[in-house]
C-alpha cells in the first residue's frame, strides 16, 4: 500500500498536477507517524520526496485540518495568489472531514486530488503504553524503544529490555474500533487493499453514560474539565474547527475568560462541542491531541448520537446532503426546546 501511495504521489508531482502533497512521514519516536508536506515549487527534485511518504498503523492525525488555511481569502490583501491544488492522503475519517469542509466551502473539491486509503485502523500509543506499564515493575521501564509491525501483530521492545507482542485489533484507537466508514468512497485514487470491518458507531458506551444520573454525569464532566489547561490543542487539531476567529478569542466584548477557571473551561468545551453538532466525524483528533488526556470523545460522540437520532443525519461521504446545522425543515425535531 505504501509503495502504491508513493507511486501515485510521485506521478502527481511529475505531471505537475498538484502544488502541494500532504501525507505522512515516519515520526521521531516509535509508534508515531506525522503529517508530511511536499511543496513542489520550493523543493529540489520534489518527486524524490515521495519516497519519504509512509503508510502504517500510526497515521492517525486527521490531515483535513490543514486544508482551510490554503483556501482562505483575505479581503484586505492587495494580491490574490491563485489557490493551490493539493493532493492529500485520506483515510475514511479524513475524507469525511474533507467532505464536511467542501460542503462548508472551506476547501474547493476541484482543488483537491484525493488519494483514498482503505483503513485498517490506527494503533493507540497510549493504550500500548498503558498495557505495557501494567506488566513492567515500573512505568519508567515501559518506555518503548523499538517496534515491528507485521501481519496484524505489533512487537515492542521496551527500555526494561522485555519484549511484548500485541494483536493490533486489541490496541486500536477507540475511534477506529467504532468507525463505520473505514473504506473511503468517491476519491480520485484509491489504494488497493482491505479495510477493517466497519464498527457499530460505539453508541453503546454513550447509552451507558446517558443511563447515569444527572449528578453522576455532571461529576464526570467536571472531573474531565478540571484536567484542561486551555492549550487549545483540541480546537487546533479539529478539522471542523476552522472559524477564522474563535469565540474564545473575542476580546471586544469578551465571551469567556482565558484562564483555567472551571466555568470558563466548561463554557469553552460546551460551546466548541455543540458547534460540532452534525459536523464532527468522530475521528477523535481532539481527544488524541489533548496533552492532559481529557475524555472529549464521550461528549463529542454524545452530540453525534443526538444529531443522528433527532435529525437522521450522520456525516458520511455524501457531498450532496446538507448538515442539519446549515438548514431548516418544518418537521425538524424541537423536542429539546423546553419551557423554562
Amino acid at each position, binding site marked *: 500500500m505504501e509503495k502504491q501511495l508513493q507511486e501515485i504521489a510521485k506521478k502527481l508531482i511529475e505531471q505537475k498536477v498538484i502544488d502541494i502533497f500532504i501525507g505522512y512521514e515516519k515520526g*521521531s*519516536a516509535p509508534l508515531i507517524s*506525522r503529517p508530511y508536506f511536499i511543496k513542489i515549487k*520550493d523543493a529540489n527534485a520534489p518527486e524524490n520526496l515521495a519516497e519519504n511518504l509512509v503508510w502504517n498503523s500510526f497515521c492517525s492525525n486527521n490531515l483535513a485540518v490543514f486544508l482551510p488555511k490554503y483556501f482562505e481569502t483575505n479581503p484586505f490583501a492587495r494580491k490574490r495568489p491563485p489557490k493551490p491544488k493539493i493532493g492529500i492522503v485520506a483515510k475514511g475519517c479524513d475524507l469525511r472531514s474533507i467532505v464536511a469542509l467542501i460542503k462548508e466551502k472551506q476547501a474547493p473539491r476541484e482543488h483537491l486530488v484525493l488519494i483514498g486509503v482503505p483503513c485498517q485502523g490506527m494503533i493507540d500509543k497510549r493504550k500500548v503504553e498503558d498495557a505495557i506499564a501494567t506488566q513492567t515493575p515500573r512505568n519508567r521501564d515501559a518506555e518503548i524503544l523499538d517496534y515491528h509491525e507485521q501481519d496484524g501483530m505489533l512487537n515492542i521492545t521496551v527500555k526494561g529490555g522485555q519484549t511484548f507482542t500485541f494483536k493490533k485489533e486489541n490496541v486500536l484507537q477507540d475511534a477506529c474500533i467504532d468507525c463505520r466508514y473505514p473504506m473511503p468512497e468517491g476519491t480520485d485514487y484509491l489504494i488497493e487493499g482491505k479495510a477493517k470491518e466497519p464498527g457499530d458507531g460505539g453508541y453503546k458506551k454513550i447509552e451507558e453514560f446517558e443511563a447515569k444520573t444527572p449528578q453522576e454525569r455532571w461529576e464526570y464532566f467536571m472531573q474531565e474539565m478540571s484536567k484542561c489547561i486551555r*492549550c487549545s490543542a483540541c480546537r487546533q487539531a479539529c478539522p471542523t474547527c476552522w472559524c477564522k*476567529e474563535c469565540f474564545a*478569542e473575542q476580546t471586544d466584548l469578551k465571551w469567556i475568560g*482565558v*484562564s483555567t477557571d472551571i466555568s470558563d473551561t466548561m463554557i469553552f468545551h460546551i460551546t466548541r462541542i455543540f458547534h460540532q453538532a452534525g459536523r464532527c466525524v468522530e475521528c477523535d483528533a481532539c481527544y*488524541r491531541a489533548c496533552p492532559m488526556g481529557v475524555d472529549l470523545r464521550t461528549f463529542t460522540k454524545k452530540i453525534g448520537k443526538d444529531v443522528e437520532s433527532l435529525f437522521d443525519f450522520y456525516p458520511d461521504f455524501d457531498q450532496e446532503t446538507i448538515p442539519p446545522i446549515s438548514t431548516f425543515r418544518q418537521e425538524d425535531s424541537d423536542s429539546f426546546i423546553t419551557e423554562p
Partner: protein
Amino acid sequence: MGIITKQELNRLIAATAKNTKFYAPIEGNNGIEYAETVGDQPISYDYVNVKLSPKGLFFPQREVLCRFCGDTIQDIPVPDERFIVFGGRPCDARSLRELEMVFDDQTSKFQDPYYMVRRKNALIITLACNEPATTCFCTTVGGSPTESEGSDIIVSELGDDLLFEACTEKGKKFMETYREFFQQPTDTHFSAKEENAKKAADALSVFAIDGMKERLDGIFEEEVWETITNNCLGCGACTYLCPTCHCFDISDETNGKGEGIRLRTWDSCQYPLFTLHASGHNPRVNKKQRMRQRLMHKFSYTVEKNNAIFCVGCGRCVLNCPVNLDIRDMLQTLYK
C-alpha cells in the same frame, strides 16, 4: 549531606508540615502531579518528568492581582508562605533559575513580586535523573542529569535510599534543622551515585547547537521556517508544558454588578491574540512567524539578554506535541 530512606522521608515531611507546605509528585486521578502532602501519601518516584512542571507553583496559570468595584481597588497580596518542592528534575530546577532571570531582571527597574516572593519562600529539593528518557536532551542545551543549578538540595535516588546534598545556604540550614532524620552516607552510597550519574549522562543523546544564536540570527527571513512548521497546528501545548515559557497576559473579568478581578494568566506566542494590536493589525499572522518567535526567544533573544538558552531539554514538548513537531528536529534542520 545525609541519607534518608523513602519511608523515612514521609516522616520528615510530616515533621516539616508544621512550618511549611510540602509539594511532591503524587499519583492521582490525572497521573503524577505535584500535590501538597503532609507525609501521609506515597510519593511517586516512577517518572522521568512530571508532565506539568513545577513552574505553576511559582508562576500559576491563573493569578488574581487585584479586585475592583467602581473606584475601589483592593490589591491581592502574594501568599507569603514557605513551601518545599520535592522531586523536580535538574532540568526543572534549571528552568526555575532561568525564570528568575526574567522575573528578577537585574538590568530592569522592576522585579516581579509574585514570582520572587514565592521563589524566596521556596526550598527546592531536586531529584537527580538516573534514567533519562529518549526524548531528553539536557546535555545538549548545557544542562546535566545531575547538576545542582537552581536547586537548594540535590537528591540522588539510590534504590530505597535517598542521598541528600545541600547546595545552597538555605539547603544547608534545612539539613541542619532536620539532621535527626539523616544518616551518615557511606562510600558505597557515593560510588553508587557516581555510577548512576555516568550511566545517565551516557544515556543522553547529544546534537550540536554551538553558535545556534548566530545561525538563527542569520536566517530570520529564510524559507526554512515555513518548511519546518508545515505541520504545526498552532496550539499552545508546547508552550504551556514548557518549564521555561513564561509569557503572560493581564486581563480583567467583570460581572454584571460591576465587580471585577484583574488576572494574570499564561499566554502563548502560538496564539493569534498574542500579538494582535488594538488597530486590528497582527504582526505575526501565521504559524511560521509564531514558531520562529518561540525558537528565537529560546535560542537567541535570551542568549543575548540573559546569556542562557531558555530550553532545558526536558522533552515535554517533544512528548506531547499532537503532530510530533520535534524541537530537536527543528533545531537540527535550522543548524544545517
